[in-house]
């Protein structure tokens, strides 16, 4: 009986078997790459806001402390978004006529809140607490990046769970002295591991990786 399949079918089948695997590998790799790209993670994507508020200007140029506006960062899970009143504390005096600040003045006049666009957003099943991180020596810049150099706010890190776990597994690589938490210029010393290990002991930092620490 004659061969049903021509010899060339061997090649075709080889190509399709290995090619198929190859396609799957490429597909998975592509999806993974997309998932980590800034298209999905929004890392480095500056958001437009109702008022083009510049952290760079207020923090670097004016030297305003984070806590002047984000008032509850040390005592609550939520760091706090400044009320219009806080903006107006200064802007009744300076740039009081600036057209760019009209939405702020309008909010103050009408009592209707400004609606900012969220930059850092966690899924509904994740519960993050600012106050305990600040208390344990996690600096603002560790997660939010050099806010003092951002004219418009963007997300510095993916906020993916693997990113959270980097620090939750190895806190000594990231913690800093408490008094440096709000310091934008703080750079980890060359012996960060030594300092970190000391601080982990001193601040009683646990390696919290149980699910219910963040999910509930």
């Amino acid at each position: 009986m004659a061969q049903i399949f021509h010899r060339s079918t061997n090649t075709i089948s080889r190509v399709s078997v290995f090619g198929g695997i190859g396609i799957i590998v490429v597909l998975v790799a592509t999806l993974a790459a997309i998932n980590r790209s800034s298209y999905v993670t929004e890392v480095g994507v500056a958001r437009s806001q109702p008022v083009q508020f510049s952290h760079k200007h207020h923090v670097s140029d004016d030297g305003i402390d984070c806590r002047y506006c984000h008032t509850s960062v040390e005592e609550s899970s939520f760091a706090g978004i400044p009320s219009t009143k806080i903006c107006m504390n200064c802007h009744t005096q300076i740039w009081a006529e600036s057209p760019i600040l009209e939405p702020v003045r309008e909010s103050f006049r009408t009592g209707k809140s400004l609606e900012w666009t969220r930059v850092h957003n966690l899924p509904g099943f994740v519960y993050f607490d600012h106050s305990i991180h600040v208390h344990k020596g996690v600096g603002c810049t560790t997660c939010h990046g050099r806010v003092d150099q951002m004219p418009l706010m963007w997300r510095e890190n993916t906020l993916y769970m693997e990113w959270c776990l980097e620090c939750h597994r190895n806190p000594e690589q990231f913690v800093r002295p408490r008094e440096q938490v709000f310091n934008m210029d703080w750079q980890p010393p060359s012996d960060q591991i030594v300092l970190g290990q000391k601080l982990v002991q001193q601040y009683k930092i646990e390696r919290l990786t149980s699910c219910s620490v963040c999910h509930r």
Partner: protein
Amino acid sequence: MKPDTRRPTLDTSRLDLASIRERLGSSQGQEYWRCLEELADSEQFHKLLIQEFPQQAAGWFDGVSRRDFLRLMGASLALAGLNACGRAAPIDKKIVPYVNQPEEIVPGRPMFFATAFPMGGAGTGVLVESHEGRPTKIEGNPNHPASVGATNAFAQASILTLYDPDRSQVVSNAGRISTWNAFLTAINDDLEAERLSGGAGLRILTETVTSPTLTNQLRQLLAKFPRAKWHQYEPVNRDNAQAGGRLAFGNNVNTVYRFDNADVVLSLDADFLFAGPGNVRYARDFVGKRRVRQNKSEMNRLYVIEVTPSVTGSMADHRLALRPSEMPGFAAAIAAKIGLPVQSTTDAQHSQWIDALVRDLQKHRGGGIVVAGDQQPPVVHALAHAMNQALDNVGKTVIYTDPIVANPVDQSASLRELVRDMETASVKVLVMLGGNPVFTAPVDLRFAEHLAKVPFRVHSSLYDDETSAYCHWHIPETHYLESWSDVRAYDGSVTILQPLIAPLYGGKSSHEVLAALLGGFGDTTYDIVRNYWKTQKIAGDFETFWRTALHDGVVAGTAFQPKTVKLKALANVDGLSASDASVSETRNSKPARQNSLEISFQPDPTLFDGRFANNGWLQELPKPLTKLTWDNAALMSPKTAERLGLSYQVGARGGEHGRVFTDVIELRYEGRSLRAPAWIVPGHADECITLHLGYGRTRAGKVGNGTGFNAYAIRTANAPYYGAGLEIRKIGTQYPLACTQFHHSMEGRDLVRAATIEEYRKNPNFVQGEHHQESEGSLYPGYKYEGYAWGMSIDVNACVGCNACVVACQSENNIPVVGKTEVTRGREMHWLRIDRYYKGSPQNPETYHQPVPCMHCENAPCELVCPVGATNHSHEGLNDMVYNRCVGTRYCSNNCPYKVRRFNFFEYSDFETPSLKPLRNPNVTVRSRGVMEKCTYCVQRINVAKIEAEKENRPVRDGEIQTACQAACPTQAIVFGDINNREAAVAKLKSESLNYGLLTELNTKPRTTYLAKLKNPNPEIKTG
């Protein structure tokens, strides 16, 4: 009510009561059972049990065929990976700050405000958790005498009513939308006419009023309209208790019981642990005297004589079930034995019981309480007062004060008078503040018919209900969490109610409506309440007083002082004199004809008088003893059911454990008839049928409409609670009831362990004894819990089965309501259930309640079988559930020996209704379809407490974390804490000899353990 005539498709054997009796007769020792089926040991029941996961089986019969199912599954698998590829944050997500942030608000941190939950006129102090101005959870107020930090199920559920989207939202006139101003104009014209006649045609109908401010306004109104009348009516009222006080003392009194001083308690049909003013406090005090610990083995003793099995009855050391008509005579027999000059004929059957009881009461003179139930006729109350006097209890355990009710009228008489006036058309303007008399008034008064003769009718209420439909004007009423007011507690203490939120639906408080009648149109409720208190004598600065009162949740020094009352000579008491042989023939229970069935009307244990009919949490809450949800039924004893040939079948259809088909009967009473499903309740009095009020609403709202049957339809004015002459006919159809009793049966293992106090004293380790050996060791390496190790101890001896914990858990953890159909499939979502066990004869069994949350096993069987790692153990011993990982295999639930895991078969959580969104606890994920969930030990509370402690550089203090169930529990039966801390209350409880775990022979090492149940029977009374 339309009876469901659908038959179960599988052949089910009918319940055979005769065989049960036979089986019980031959058995020895402790026999616990959950339901009659189990006791009957029927083959069908075993078949149902063998269906390992009955909830799933039902699904095959649903619309989607197997082929469709496989196709859908294929598609789901193909797309499985893709849902990870969404954008993390939708671009348009907004964050909205305050314009001017209030100083005291820290976003993300809840605040607590003190107020009080009013029900039946009496207030229970509560602290309400508020997240940025929206109330989310009710807790008890430790400062308040009626709460002492705990709450009951009604208070817990009241927050859902606040947000109920079915609440009335607009002023309406003859069914058309109108405005408050239009109402003011309209009523002003009519009031003008009334002013000329001195208010001869003006009537106000309120519910029970204890509020000093409201009373003051009503008095002002009566001063302005001297011929106007103020009526009060609630369908479940305290008329009998008040009349009993007048019988005994000649004037109105309020009785306050000190269960913390009582060693022997006799309840004459009083459900004091569950209902009535002060029930939370009474439960706390009563159980405080029952707690047995290593260094304390004294217990109080409770005798209960009752008609319908109640929560209090289930705590009894000795319980008798009597027909209503026998109660007064029985009370008289006890009184006579105590030595009161009452004539009585004791039936020989119970003489030994009565003798022993009386000796016990006399042995504890000054340390006993005789308490009569609100449903009992006045004469029983008078007898109870006389007995307390004779036993020297007055002043020690029984305190008399002035009535807490501002105007203690006989409410039935008050309503009757109003109806008479309406009938003669002498009522021109009727203003009804709250209540729902068209639905709840005695049917023979024909309230609705006569109401139609009133030319100007106004009804202010939370819902546009049955009464509103009969009125010209309907005013949406404010919820108690939306308005200023004040209320008295069971001992007279006043709480000033403060609003937690502005009226959601533009409601008006009763104060505002009355102010409008008084001509004070611009007054806000705040002004009215505050101005009233300004006129009161207050020591010191008013502002300080006001702020202190609001902060504390109770106005200092307002509890009534004990007053001395003088008992009338019994010979002068109507119906009690020795010459008067009519003790049993009393006002409120008609003389029983021999062999006639009697009827008993009781407030429903979840809907009360019907006011909570649209509250899904309460509708779905299994009733403490019957474990029915979403329906009421005609309750009767097994013997009566057997005589009447009534029975029920556990719905088969692939093991739908929650569905029970029961015979429908027609009840004929005083010329009216009603159809209702029959339900057998072990321990019910024979030849008597109990109907729970509050069901069968037609205008309750989407949740409450059409559930159950309306018992008011045959309730008459002269027999509001008990009557005789009931006739019953089986009509041959069946009706499915959703009962949670049949779920998760545990096959006769020793889940509840109990003994008498004598047995305990002889062998304090009886719990550990002859029970299953705990196995040791594991294939998996052990884990050392070094930091905190969370654990829970539940005292079965303290649990009264009141359900407060179940609703508290539902409120705290955003647990959805699933509806009757889903409950019949065994899919209710409660993370915490209360199992109810019986022991002994079905005629009068002992009852045990056992709350079962997740056990947080150290060797958790659920964790090993999860294919996606969605349930894991935390380093503190919590069995974590990760919703976002769960793919819904339900393997964990299958492998859980305690059956405490709950699966979202459908999207039960309401993500759409806007008004329900602010209700949710923002610290707990709202679960969607396809996700398993279960008790987390309130991990959100653990995390908050840990964070606070770490910020202060200290360990979490013992008692700092209270789980929702623990905080709500009136009897402190649930204790939670760190078992690694030897000084922690929970660790001490776990070292008690009464401590045991459920199914520990499976080597699950549960973190939740139980303290065994103890009873303190009188050795002089033979049980059997």
